[in-house]
């Protein structure tokens, strides 16, 4: 797929890897007969939210924190669509966190990619709900006093039927995860470890430390796999009636 020009991310930003992996995934889906027009992209507000500006797919920006309800609405309006959302740690774990719990609980057949860079990138480097305790940011010059949230763990315990963690530095693994997530029937949640070169440069740390895992056989194992933030790969997948199926069945 051709990339649109004039990318405004900082050179070296992890978002480039995510964009690349996604466009590879879209090409693969297209080769398999899914017309591009059926992949609908919704993005939140943040650096991650610029992604749809760089790909030629139908897309729109929601307001900050509301990617998931918009995806849900799309899927309900047209069940033939593949609604795909791009959100940030601020955009999904701070503002609008409630939507993740409900999307997972409902098991709507949509996919969410969460660019987890541990900061508000676009507003220039304040702490988010995933910033580790003690880290100094522009709103926590004294060190973040709060414990961070673990997005994959939250998705799991809320009932997501597909949970994975990818890494912006591993395109091959990430595009495979993206493909599996979009093809999954039910709510698919993918956390992507994304270095932010300007405000939270984790490239070195991730490059040395991330490891690959195999999907858990059972829920409890998935929980413990998700707890370690350096575990990447598909963590969990399960079959459950989707929201749309349940709606149709009860009609």
């Amino acid at each position, binding site marked *: 797929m051709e990339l649109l020009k004039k990318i405004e991310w900082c050179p070296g930003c992890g978002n480039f890897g995510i964009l690349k992996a996604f466009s590879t995934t879209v090409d693969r889906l297209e080769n398999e007969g899914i017309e591009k027009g059926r992949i609908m992209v919704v993005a939140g507000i943040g650096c991650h939210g610029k992604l749809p500006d760089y790909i030629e797919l139908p897309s729109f920006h929601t*307001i900050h924190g509301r990617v998931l309800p918009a995806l849900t609405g799309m899927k309900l309006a047209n069940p033939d669509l593949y609604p795909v959302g791009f959100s940030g740690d601020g955009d999904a774990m*701070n*503002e609008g966190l409630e939507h993740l719990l409900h999307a997972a609980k409902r098991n709507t057949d949509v996919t969410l990619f969460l660019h987890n860079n541990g900061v*508000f990138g676009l*507003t220039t480097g*304040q702490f988010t709900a995933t910033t580790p305790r003690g880290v100094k940011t*522009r*709103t926590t*010059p004294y060190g973040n006093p709060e414990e961070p949230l673990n997005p994959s763990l939250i998705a799991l315990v809320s009932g997501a039927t597909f949970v994975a963690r990818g890494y912006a530095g591993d395109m091959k693994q990430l595009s495979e995860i993206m493909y599996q997530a979009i093809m999954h029937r039910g709510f698919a949640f993918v956390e992507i470890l994304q270095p932010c070169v300007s405000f939270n440069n984790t490239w070195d740390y991730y490059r040395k430390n991330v490891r690959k895992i195999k999907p858990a056989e059972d829920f409890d194992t998935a929980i413990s796999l998700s707890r370690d933030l350096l575990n990447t790969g598909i963590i969990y997948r399960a079959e459950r009636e989707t929201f749309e199926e349940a709606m149709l069945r009860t009609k």
Partner: protein
Amino acid sequence: MRKVVRGFYAIAEAVRLSRPNVIAAYPITPQTEIVENLAEMYANGELGDAEYVTAESEFGAASMVLGASAAGARAFTATSSQGLLLMTEVLYNAAGMRLPIVLVVANRSVSAPLSIWNDIQDSISVRDAGIIQLYVESNQEAHDMLPLAFKVAENRDVLLPFMICVDGFKLTHAYEPVDLLDQETVDKFLPPYEPAVKLDVNSPVAMGCYAPPPYYMEFRVAMECAMERASRVMLEEFERWYELTGRNWGGHVVAENCEDAEVVVVAMGSVVALVREVVNRMREGGKKVGLLKIRTYRPFPSEDVRKALENAGKVIVIERALSIGAEPPVTADVKSAIFGLDAEVYPVVMGLGGRDIPRELVEKVIDDVMEGKVKPEKRFEGLNEFEEVIP
């Protein structure tokens, strides 16, 4: 002490000097630097007794200051645009609970389309909430209005939230010389906070309780009465401020060159400074033009506006927000204030979403009205030619 500082610092510094107990906020451009400055002051131990918290959202931030205020704390927050819209449900509630929260809005346009640039649609949208609203034209004014806001909001005759509206980027990020207040002066003006009511185990009260039809209306009308009293209380405090600091902000409005003016331009916020410049220059050229700055937008100073426009044949209202489907907001208020007078009113919408308002454009707008080239009806200036294409 006179210093060249940026708007966000002048605001944060005045918040600090007002000795708040709780500050809760969520970053959003262009408010972010205000709260970052406060976070830094907090880190340096300069915020006294205050607790500073970055909330999980604006909804959380507004709810935290509501809770803090109900528990008897002097509470502050700041936001912009979408953040203010998200706070709105809580702010209506805070006003109804009569909690004297002070907030600064760094004015920014609202979505969609997405824009971080300035107009005043955000704060205008909450004008009916029961919140006192001031629009400032300089960072000195923003700085001075903060202690004043706490003092007025906390007055037992008022007890309403107080919002200071500061144009995003144009003021918040501008470098301007500001006479920075010192603690002694502020302490002389603003006494330690004594809540009129608070949640207290020893004398329990319930706030925000259910009011069925036999009771509800009285609570809302009581807010209306408090807003009217706020008008007087503010004038008294402006006076006190003048005595204490030597800075005379006048009153709710500032009328310049209005007595004999054929055309008076009404404006709010940072654009006032530009209009003043244009008006003064036209005066030098012998044109009878005046300026009416509206500082207090809620409570709306109808009498002051009427008085200032008594002799004006023509009134131009510069609008930087819309009430889509109706007369622009300030125009509607001005028209009702001067009802029965002969003046013709020319609403001119400009500067939405950060669109530049050049000096020449303001000049042209005034000339067009003076020379009778335009009709007294809503107009858009600085607008590109466009065609709406509906696929």
